[in-house]
């Protein structure tokens, strides 16, 4: 029996050979996860689906470059989806206002111990290290990565100058890196 990662690897391999059936199978397997990810950042269904389209086109064109030694296939695809959504949110002209409640909900969904995927151990380590940070630094990192918050939006949420937020981000990242073993 193949593991989920092995199954996805096989699909990416077939997609590299321009196999449409494999592409549809991959879409069925991961599109809901990746859309959840782009939607969490863009908070707009149409824009999130546009980012999902771009993500799958990139997967189609770059499947041959995926290397199993570099990590799980879902992590590779999630990184592409994340990067695509962040590019889109940073290019976006209009600013969608963010309520404090939305940020609180997002924090709760990320920081609460929940599902134990194959990354359970890694996720646990990340959560433990986040807990060691100054709460404001931790929230900045989580809201930026998971929610697509800009420095400006973080500054508004915490009612601090943008420069302070930048310092918090750098300090938080440095401590996180040390805690996770460099």
């Amino acid at each position, binding site marked *: 029996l193949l593991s989920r990662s092995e199954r996805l690897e096989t699909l990416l391999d077939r997609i590299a050979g321009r196999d449409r059936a494999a592409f*549809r199978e991959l879409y069925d397997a991961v599109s809901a996860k990746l859309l959840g*990810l782009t939607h969490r950042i863009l908070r707009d269904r149409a824009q999130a689906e546009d980012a999902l389209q771009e993500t799958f086109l990139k997967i189609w064109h770059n499947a041959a470059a995926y290397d199993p030694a570099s990590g799980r296939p879902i992590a590779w695809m999630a990184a592409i989806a994340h990067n695509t959504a962040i590019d889109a949110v940073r290019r976006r002209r209009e600013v969608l206002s963010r309520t404090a409640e939305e940020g609180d909900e997002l924090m709760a*969904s990320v920081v609460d111990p929940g*599902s134990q995927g194959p990354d359970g151990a890694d996720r646990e380590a*990340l959560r433990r290290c986040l807990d060691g940070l100054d709460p404001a630094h931790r929230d900045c990192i989580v809201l930026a990565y998971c929610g697509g918050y800009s420095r400006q939006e973080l500054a508004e949420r915490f009612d601090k100058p943008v420069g302070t937020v930048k310092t918090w981000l750098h300090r938080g990242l440095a401590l996180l890196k040390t805690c996770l073993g460099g």
Partner: protein
Amino acid sequence: VADDKDSLAGEYVLGTLAAEERAEVARRMLADHELAAAVTAWQRRLAPFADSAAELAPSAGLLAAIEARLDAPAAATPRAPAMAAAEVTALRRRVSFWRGTTAGAAALAACLAVAVVAAPYWLAPSQGGHFVGMVSRDGGLPAMIVEVDTAEGTVSVRSVTAAAPSGRSLELWYVAEGRAPLSVGLIERAGATLRFPTGGLPGFIPASATFAVTEEPQGGAPEGKPTGPVIFSGKLIPAPD
């Protein structure tokens, strides 16, 4: 890694840089392996966050819309100004794979005159959207054949006669107009084919791209920048139907 470089990589992955700063980091990563490695490391550290995203079913018809765009030439594919770091590093890994194999033995005189020969009989029949380049020297037999299929979004580089002098490596570079050369891989032995997506070549326009081969220390240019003499170079031409 210097602290400021690591902060920059961390903020790039977090997503807090402005659009122009992101594009600048993506450009720098191509020449700065240290920065690219720092970005990859941050992607790995923060990857577990992805698991916490709740699933959201896409609209019916989205797959069909995507499939309709698969056949469009890669150039028409919307591409973020900054290529996903995951894609860049995937290309780098491919390069290191090539570095792992043993270099050929036949000697090649360095610093030979460079010439591009486009002998029609070398062009295999091909469909539209194909570009072919012969990378050669002195008008002799082609050393390498570069084929680009814009429909497939792939570049294939077949080494015909190229072989590195003992203890040296031949490195293939892609040079987009106005940009620094980007290492594509090492030419290990005659007959080998290197294939990779055009998505790995930033700013790729077949008609203006140059491919060049330099002689480098074994294992490739240490800094990711060409150091040795240019042995071959060539541009691409549209392949006749």
